[in-house]
């Protein structure tokens, strides 16, 4: 089949979101099952694209409108994008299934539209090969995220969304100024074309432009000084949406940051921007882990833990070495699985028992054994115990950090990991060794999804080689810019 059909990844969620107003008369149930069907279809397309890219080893270049880049906009679905588009679609599908039980707040038709558009935005951010198009997809992602954060219509949710809107608005204005500066200096917006011209940019312009872009993306990617919105938003958003934030919305921001950094690596002032990012990332890990230690609300605790893991990924990307980027991608995959598992299980508990404070988790081992087991596996994996998937990626990140010569960063991250173990084991202890209670029915669909995710965690933990080889391919997709430029059929404008 023609590679151009990969544009269906964008077209399908769009057209189905626009279709929702026409079927909302059919009732709540219909809209929810429609959502499940569309996300399943999207997962199918993403699986086809994944299989195409990984068997041929060549990226799919989608040229919108048939115009060759840099005149038109192209999507670049290489090893990285193919992998993450599949993750985005699969997680969305799971959360659509979860939404059938978890979301009872009206209006459900608007929820379905925003849900689909959140998936679309993340897919677009990961797939695009054009700087301004990245901005457009970032806006789609973040504006849906603002609306979905406030969706529960409690005072808490409104406040969280307000914080997010203000920070996000400032961040995207910075990003836009950065894009304008870089366009002014080079005269192009295409990433591959930009990579060719990056060496010739005035070093100050490149530094200012790149730093502004990194700052703008740091709001979406939850890096230290700009992530104050995240714990509130995670706590207040509907449960399926929280899982989507953690599993792929943040990742899209991080990836965009990494991609732009490596695209501009020929610029003279590149290493100073990297140093700034290493400091920001290490602080993110450190501050978030210590903040998580004090939380009594489990959902908020996991939210802080998620931010800390994101900091770890950002650290890996900021090292500027092949080993670091590969490890970062590997951790992104593992973290997406583990955090989808944890947020799904905790949301499930909240829906069944009516809250996420630590008291609700007492005796969970007796009341909802399967869910408690899933949370335990997720928690143990997140700490990084051997034979679970996160162990391998954390190890690789630490080795890469030492390899790049940042001993202090590695030490701080290790200390933070000890803290992480403390609060996760406190949660496990509360679930299994405190409180009493009788069995409660756990719902078939959610249980199956939880078991699939648990199986993934353990399989990757025991046989990490296959997942690691995929991560390496995806990592070189980001790191090897020369190959990236070669793959994009530029038409040689103004050369």
């Amino acid at each position: 089949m023609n590679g151009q059909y990969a544009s269906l990844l964008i077209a399908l969620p769009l057209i189905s979101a626009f279709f929702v107003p026409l079927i909302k008369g059919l009732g709540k149930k219909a809209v929810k099952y429609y959502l499940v069907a569309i996300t399943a279809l999207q997962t199918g397309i993403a699986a086809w694209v994944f299989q195409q890219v990984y068997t041929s080893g060549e990226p799919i270049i989608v040229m919108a409108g048939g115009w060759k880049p840099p005149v038109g906009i192209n999507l670049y679905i290489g090893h990285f994008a193919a992998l993450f588009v599949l993750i985005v679609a699969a997680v969305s599908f799971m959360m659509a299934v979860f939404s059938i039980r978890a979301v009872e707040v009206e209006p459900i038709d608007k929820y379905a539209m925003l849900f689909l558009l959140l998936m679309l935005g993340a897919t677009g951010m990961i797939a695009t090969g054009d700087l301004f198009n990245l901005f457009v997809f970032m806006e789609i992602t973040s504006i849906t995220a603002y609306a979905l954060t406030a969706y529960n219509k409690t005072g808490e949710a409104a406040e969280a969304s307000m914080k997010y809107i203000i920070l996000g608005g400032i961040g995207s204005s910075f990003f836009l100024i950065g894009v304008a500066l870089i366009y002014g200096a080079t005269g192009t917006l295409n990433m591959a074309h930009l990579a060719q011209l990056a060496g010739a940019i005035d070093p100050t312009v490149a530094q200012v432009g790149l730093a502004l872009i990194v700052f703008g993306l740091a709001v979406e990617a939850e890096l230290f000084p700009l992530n104050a919105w995240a714990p509130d938003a995670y706590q207040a958003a509907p449960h399926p949406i929280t899982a989507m934030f953690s599993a792929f919305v943040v990742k899209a921001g991080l990836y965009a940051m990494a991609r732009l950094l490596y695209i501009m690596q020929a610029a003279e002032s590149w290493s100073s921007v990297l140093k700034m990012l290493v400091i920001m990332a290490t602080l993110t890990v450190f501050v978030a882990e210590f903040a998580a230690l004090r939380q009594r609300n489990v959902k908020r605790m996991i939210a802080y833990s998620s931010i800390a893991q994101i900091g770890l990924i950002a650290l890996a990307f900021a090292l500027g070495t092949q080993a670091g980027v590969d490890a970062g991608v590997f951790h992104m995959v593992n973290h997406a699985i583990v955090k989808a598992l944890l947020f799904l299980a905790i949301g499930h508990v909240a829906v069944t028992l009516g809250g996420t404070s630590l008291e609700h988790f007492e005796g969970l081992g007796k009341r909802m054994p399967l869910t408690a087991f899933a949370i335990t596996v997720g928690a143990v994996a997140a700490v990084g115990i051997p034979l679970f998937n996160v162990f391998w990626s954390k190890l690789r990140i630490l080795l890469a950090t030492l390899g790049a010569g940042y001993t202090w960063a590695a030490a701080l991250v290790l200390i933070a990991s000890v803290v992480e173990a403390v609060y996760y084991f406190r949660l496990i202890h509360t679930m299994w060794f405190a409180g009493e209670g009788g069995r409660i029915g756990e719902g078939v669909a959610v249980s199956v999804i939880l078991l699939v995710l648990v199986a993934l965690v353990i399989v990757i933990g025991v046989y990490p080689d296959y997942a690691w080889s995929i991560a390496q391919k995806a990592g070189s997709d980001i790191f090897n810019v020369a190959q990236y430029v070669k793959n994009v059929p530029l038409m040689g404008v103004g050369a």
Partner: protein
Amino acid sequence: MLKRALAIISLLIIGYWLAQGLAGVPFGEDKMLVGQYYLDHVKEQTGAVNAVTAIVVNYRGFDTLGEVTVLFIASTGVGALLWRKKRERTAKTEGSIVLTTGTRLLVPFVMLFGVYIFIHGHLTPGGGFPGGATIATAFLLLYMAFITYEIPHKAFEKTEGIVGMAYVLVGLIGLAIGGYFLYDWIWQDWKFGADNIGRLFSGGFIPIIYTIIGLKVGTELSGIIDNMLKEEVSE
């Protein structure tokens, strides 16, 4: 006082830093790499004489599809956040006779002008977004002048969805005929209006897309106005 002083100082530092960056951008020099290509080829490749709309709808149509989506999200988001079971307009004072009569006379003209703007997107400045905003202004006028006026919600919501789907469908037809998403088959394959450049029936699919965008933006902004003007009433 101290806070304000610190804020001013840090703003000055950031401003200086940005100015340093701007000083390095070569303004006024020939940096038109891609821009020059657009100017040289816009007429033969898209059939539009308005280069901006040709870029926005045709060369970089993907971005416009995204922007339309952003607006759709804004209106959906407002709708989701202000949703209540029963809401009504609770305005208290009727507009003066001058205002209501003036509105009655003006609304058709404003609407007509909005339609004019989006139909002539490939010829004159403007296009779908300003045209749609103008149409929404007409509805805003009606809301301001009459205390009971309401837009027909059901029809507006459905129109919004249908024109949005129409945009994506035009793109998908391009994928089926020309092999690329958002491919302008009307101009590139059929050469429709090739001897007619600069007149109404030309410009490939730009007028079609702009009609879609105009309707979409018009209904969406009117919907936002409607949502924001209503208050919850207890039953």
